[in-house]
């Protein structure tokens, strides 16, 4: 009887398993096979062994893109986490203003990454953009900044837009974590004469440590997948300095039609991201079990 019920259960599970098998795992196998061929949308399916990989080894733009993606991740992750945590401290209270602020900060999270990039490209434009106007009106700059002719300025423009778009993500998780800390702990520490900063350091930070760690990982993995913001805002320029890994893979696979080569690049990049995801999953599951 139990085994019959098990079979019934398997039947319920089968469609989803089949779906993942056909549309995720099978394509992954295909990707591995393709990476050893000269596959192209224009035809050609020759076996090339490791040639695509040795080519990738010498592909300066690929390594530059991978490094640029890491650099972007290393810049933006601490900003997102520190700002997100500060906003969580600011808005974790139950006052109406705190809740309103939380709602407004989270709002851009529901906007698409593509759409928000189109929104910001207008704001950063040196001719019609209101970012320059605002900075000039407030006296921060005297001349309009041309944001996308310089790789560094372009990177910072993208970072500003993405921080605006996703800072609410970390904030919301931190708020939940902070709110789960008992009020009595704070009250006791206040009686002991601890300052606000001491309370944050000695109580809030240690007790939200796991959430911070997991959110940092989720956020960093997300940044490693960056594509839209650079495709739309910098177009990889100037001089392919702001290509990210996904962008360069896209460029090879769908603009240059070098699918086989793109597959090899995908697998190398996948190995990097996969390592991060596994760490995240292991940590997250350990937390649920505990």
């Amino acid at each position: 009887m139990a085994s019959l019920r098990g079979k019934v259960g398997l039947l319920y599970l089968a469609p989803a398993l089949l779906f993942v098998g056909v549309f995720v795992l099978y394509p992954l196998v295909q990707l591995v096979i393709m990476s050893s061929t000269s596959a192209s949308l224009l035809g050609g399916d020759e076996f090339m062994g490791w040639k695509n990989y040795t080519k990738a080894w010498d592909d300066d733009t690929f390594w530059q893109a991978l490094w640029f993606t890491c650099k972007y991740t290393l810049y933006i992750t601490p900003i997102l986490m520190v700002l997100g945590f500060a906003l969580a401290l600011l808005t974790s209270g139950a006052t109406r203003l705190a809740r309103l602020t939380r709602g407004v900060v989270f709002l851009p999270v529901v906007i698409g990454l593509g759409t928000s990039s189109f929104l910001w490209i207008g704001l950063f434009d040196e001719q019609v953009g209101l970012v320059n106007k605002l900075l000039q009106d407030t006296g921060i700059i005297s001349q309009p900044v041309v944001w996308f002719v310089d790789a560094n300025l372009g990177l910072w423009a993208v970072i500003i837009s993405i921080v605006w778009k996703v800072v609410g993500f970390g904030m919301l998780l931190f708020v939940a974590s902070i709110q789960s800390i008992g009020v009595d702990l704070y009250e006791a520490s206040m009686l002991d004469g601890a300052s606000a900063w001491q309370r944050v350091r000695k109580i809030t930070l240690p007790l939200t440590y796991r959430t911070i760690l997991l959110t940092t990982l989720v956020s960093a993995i997300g940044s490693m997948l960056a594509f839209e913001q650079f495709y739309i805002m910098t177009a990889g320029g100037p001089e392919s300095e702001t290509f990210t890994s996904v962008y360069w893979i896209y460029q090879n696979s769908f603009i240059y039609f070098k699918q086989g080569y793109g597959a090899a690049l995908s697998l190398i990049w996948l190995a990097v991201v996969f390592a991060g995801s596994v760490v995240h999953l292991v940590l997250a599951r350990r937390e649920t079990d505990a």
Partner: protein
Amino acid sequence: MSAAARRRALLGAAICVAVIAVMLFPIVVTFLSSVKTPAEASASPPRYFPSELSFENYLKVFHYQAGLLTYLWNSLAVAFLTIGLCLVLAVPAGYALARFQIPAKETLFLVLLSPLMIPYQAILTPLYLMFASLGLANSHIGLAIVHTILQLPFSVYLMRNSFEAVPRELEEAALCDGCSSLQALWRILLPASRPAIVTLVLFAFIASWNEFLAALIFMSDETRFTVPIMLVGVRQGHFGAVDWGALQAGVVISILPCLLIYLLLQKYYVSGFMTGSIK
């Protein structure tokens, strides 16, 4: 309240107001630019407020190439197919994981979560070739399949959790009355899991509506563009000159559904977000 505490509360309130202003600035000025006249929207230096109200930019987007309605229809069709696929796959899977003794259950669960570890960006090429040979390239259902890959782990996780939270007694009583397992799912578990279903539908809609890369690759035929891909064309404009007013009107149109959902169904959205993002 002591004077120091009062001062701190006041400072906190001031920072809150500043934060709200900074966060709303981009959306508000984009909206304001979208109702400028096309000439004023492209004027340099720009102004914050329109000197006269004009909907010409929206009219332009409405008539852009195949027409806004075509692009809206594509986006909606793909989103609804994604919602349907997610429900059809995740509800039974969540049920199986929550209620049945299945050999190697946790391993199978991990298989269903595997799209979290294998970003879809990596497998778009083989998927594209597969869809091209199946005649699914440039089709709503093809893109919906890709969007379902994105949403399936979250959906399964959500349904499993929600079904597990329903007391077993309810279902056992139903089974004793001669219900099959399917009837128990339909009559007991699904009605008890309404909030999870709402959350699943919301997330599937928003994810699909917003998705960019797969739509860019799979929908190469102009009449099949979704709204975000339409924006790529609007931005390129004619003869290389960007039509800023039209682009900003397009951005507003693209943001609007998500904004409405967020404002109306914030409760479901935020709770789903909390369950899904960390674990």
